């Protein structure tokens, strides 16, 4: 019982400042949706944890919902390529930096603690714009 408690205690992911792993988690998936990591594609599934530099990729019928550890949330639409370029987050102070690139397709976003703590600390980049998030809910779409 004691051993189990100790093992459980050690197994907890507890971070004051975050590494670039486990920055978020896939919540829902529909159709053709994958994560590209280090050049490899893997099927997205609810519960899959995400790392900085992961790319969210959807096909013509694909959809992907993700929540990040600062409580920001994404909904990725079909035919999209969304790159999680940079994610740094201090879970105690809520300071951080979160840069996402929407290379193609569409993304709905609800911002979280990083954006709330510092305006423009969360940014979305597209081929023609750089957007600073300021406690907000929005859709970003790269037109065909």
């Amino acid at each position, binding site marked *: 019982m004691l051993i189990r*408690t100790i093992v*459980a*205690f050690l*197994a*907890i*992911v*507890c*971070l*004051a400042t975050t590494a670039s792993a*486990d920055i978020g*988690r*896939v*919540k*829902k998936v*529909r159709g053709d949706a994958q994560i590209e990591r280090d050049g490899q594609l893997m099927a997205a*599934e*609810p*519960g*899959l944890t995400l790392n900085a530099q992961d790319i969210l990729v959807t096909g013509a019928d694909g*959809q992907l*919902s993700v*929540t990040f*550890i600062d*409580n920001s*949330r*994404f*909904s990725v*639409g*079909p035919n999209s390529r969304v790159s999680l370029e940079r994610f740094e987050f201090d*879970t*105690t*102070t809520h300071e951080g930096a979160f840069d996402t690139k*929407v290379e*193609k397709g*569409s993304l*709905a976003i*609800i*911002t979280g603690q990083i954006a709330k703590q510092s*305006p*423009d600390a969360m*940014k979305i980049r*597209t*081929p*023609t*714009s*750089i*957007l*600073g*998030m*300021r*406690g*907000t*809910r*929005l*859709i*970003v*779409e*790269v*037109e*065909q």
Partner: protein
Amino acid sequence: MRGSLAVTLLLLTMTAACAPSTKIILLPNEGGGGTSGSVALLSEEGDTVATIDDAYSVARVHDGGRRDIGQTTEEALAPRHVSLIQDLPQPPRSFVLYFEEGTTTLVPASEPALVDLFKEVEARSGADVQVVGHTDTLGSGPDNDSLSRDRAKEIAGVLIESGLPSHMVSAVGRGERELLVETEDGTSNPLNRRVEVLVR
């Protein structure tokens, strides 16, 4: 003949070189009320070029920076955009737990919250749980940061013991940054000494 070929090639090159435009639709905040946050269009250097802060504003930004800003309504949103919004994950749900002073024994009044917490985890696809420790203002800021983090780790352990898969659980400390009851510095207050569990 050669002239029009040159023009055609030039036009093709220009079109090919043009990056696709971006459309931005600002939505009202969750929970109704019609308020919205705002989005800033930034330059490469990070300077604010323009701000969008009206709900249902639609901005289109073209290659080269030219932009048009207009307005839409909830009713006029395209089906694909309605769908995108509907697919956003639900907001996290927070459960506050109180413990017998200095122990990991839940006070009886917090037992229903624990039951609800587990039900919420069951109900969510790909759920994860973040245990957040909070202190009162007694003690220094940095000490309270450590204390709250240790406390969160301890309670995360209890939740794992009670059946939550460990890969689903994380623990963080917020020190005295989120007081439930505003007090002066250096004030003991049991309501502030709490653990909040977020189910995402």
